[in-house]
């Protein structure tokens, strides 16, 4: 198992290099002058030149890329933000806990809704509960997250005045964002749980368990769920990984200072080191989450476990 993990981590290296190259190239050819964007419309030509000199913007593509890789590899230095001259890594890392928390809470909400509802729907297929929850799940999947967030603010903050509309420090502030992310993710998880369970409960070994005289509830929890878990865990992991980098919209609606917002701001401001470092950071986290999921598979399924050895 350890060897498997080590191999997977090694495989990350080409991915990281590739991501770096792609983002670097993309950013390099992005139009717009970072100096002007950072310093604003009122800065003079002298200051612009000075800025370009400091940040090595006058160098060519190859020189800049080589320098970047050199610094990253030999000095563990992803560069400084153009805007506030802070080390990019620290900058991204300081936003990361917030994003992690948002994604974590969202997925927590999603799991606690999605899995039970999905299981009940599957066991009571075609029942009223099933139809209603499937329609809700479909609505949840169909509703753009940011629109849902806006409506929730309107309802809970403006009309009812129950919950604050922005920020992410107190428990109350976390409720709306977590629900926004949670409900739409729950919709995905519900659907996946249901279809995975439906597939599993038609399997022969479920019939075997019934034939043993096992109780239906036990059959679901002991036999079916475990086998249905892999696709569910996959979806949870994918959603979680996605939220780590892609909760941009929710973050901007609720004014949450997460990685996604940082990235979008940096992209708009052409703060290339932050974009570059941020994408890298997210790519690595995303890959680590995927690895973690694969390890979970091994835990869940002895067949996979034996392959890893």
């Amino acid at each position: 198992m350890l060897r498997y993990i080590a191999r997977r981590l090694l495989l990350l290296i080409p991915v990281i290099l590739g991501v770096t190259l792609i983002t670097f190239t993309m950013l390099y050819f992005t139009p717009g002058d970072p100096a002007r964007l950072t310093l604003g419309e009122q800065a003079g030509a002298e200051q612009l030149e000075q800025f370009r000199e400091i940040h090595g913007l006058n160098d060519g593509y190859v020189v800049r890329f080589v320098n970047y890789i050199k610094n990253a590899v030999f000095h563990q230095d992803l560069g400084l933000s153009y805007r506030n001259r802070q080390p990019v890594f620290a900058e991204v890392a300081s936003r990361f806990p917030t994003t992690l928390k948002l994604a974590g809470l969202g997925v927590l909400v999603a799991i606690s809704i999605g899995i039970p509802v999905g299981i009940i729907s599957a066991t009571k297929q075609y029942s009223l509960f099933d139809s209603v929850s499937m329609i809700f799940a479909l609505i949840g999947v169909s509703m753009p997250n940011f629109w849902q967030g806006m409506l929730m603010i309107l309802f809970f903050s403006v009309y009812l005045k129950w919950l604050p509309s922005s920020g992410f420090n107190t428990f109350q502030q976390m409720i709306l964002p977590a629900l926004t992310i949670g409900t739409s993710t729950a919709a995905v998880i519900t659907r996946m749980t249901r279809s995975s369970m439906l597939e599993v409960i038609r399997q022969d070994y479920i019939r075997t368990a019934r034939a043993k005289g096992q109780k239906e509830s036990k059959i679901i929890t002991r036999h079916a769920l475990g086998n249905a878990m892999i696709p569910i865990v996959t979806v949870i992991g994918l959603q979680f990984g996605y939220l780590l980098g892609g909760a941009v919209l929710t973050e901007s609606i609720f004014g949450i200072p997460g990685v996604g917002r940082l990235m979008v701001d940096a992209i708009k401001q052409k703060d290339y080191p932050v974009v570059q470092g941020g994408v890298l950071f997210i790519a690595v986290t995303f890959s680590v989450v995927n690895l973690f999921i694969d390890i979970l598979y091994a835990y869940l399924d002895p067949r996979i476990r034996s392959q890893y050895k």
Partner: protein
Amino acid sequence: MEKKNNTPAPTQQVAQKRNQWKEVWRRLRQNKMAMVGLAILIILALAAIFADVIAPNGFDNQVIKDRFQTPNSTHWFGTDNLGRGVFDRVIHGARVSLSIGIISVSIAIVFGGLLGALAGFYGGRVDNVIMRSMDILLAIPSILLAISIVSALGGGLFNVMLAVGISSIPGYARIVRASVITLKGQEFIEAARAIGANDSRIIMKHIIPNSLAPIIVQGTLGVAGAILSAAGLSFIGLGLSPPNPEWGAMLSGGRDYIRDHMHMTLFPGLMIMATIFALNLLGDGLRDALDPKLKN
């Protein structure tokens, strides 16, 4: 009748194919929800095609004095901050959003499909190079990738389509590769090869038609995803911008007025929702129809 023949005559094969699609359609027709979805989509598509007839005022007909009207008999969905009919804009927006969805998914299918087919068909080093590149793209969350591409290319309809399309290429590449690998081992491919068909012919005539089913399902759901992504891009100001009536851009434009003039965001939001809802219903239905094994 049921002759076990590894190389069915072409006509026979075509006939089988036609029957197969007829069968799929028959199964699909029995799925009420899928039909509801299809009906919604047809209505939306008609609205998009005939937008100029349905909403002759166009999407940018400002009548400043009429702004912020709530829905009424002249302006069914009310008017926005510049006095344009929200209904007019939403209808013209269908054209934009649907074409973004369809074209970006087509881009993804064409490139992803091609890459996946090559990878699966040739295997070995080709496979390795292609799929590792896909892994790299997959390591970046798609919305972030789309954002980066749009910022590199600039906004605008085509660039948004391209960005959303590119960011979903890896998904299709994987699907096609997997189904090609399964197909490759099957007898009729070997048979085709045995009678001297070259690679490109095998790919075009045999592999691609036979891996269509998963692509169709994924593509239907992909259109939904693409519309959502594009709306998200517009919403954070990186996609299409006013006066373009793309639904996400309308949501973005209306967000400052949501408290006083909710209809400005309500209708574009509902349109997105209805579209995605319908696409999901149809996609689910198609999956069941194309893969009867999974049917409950």
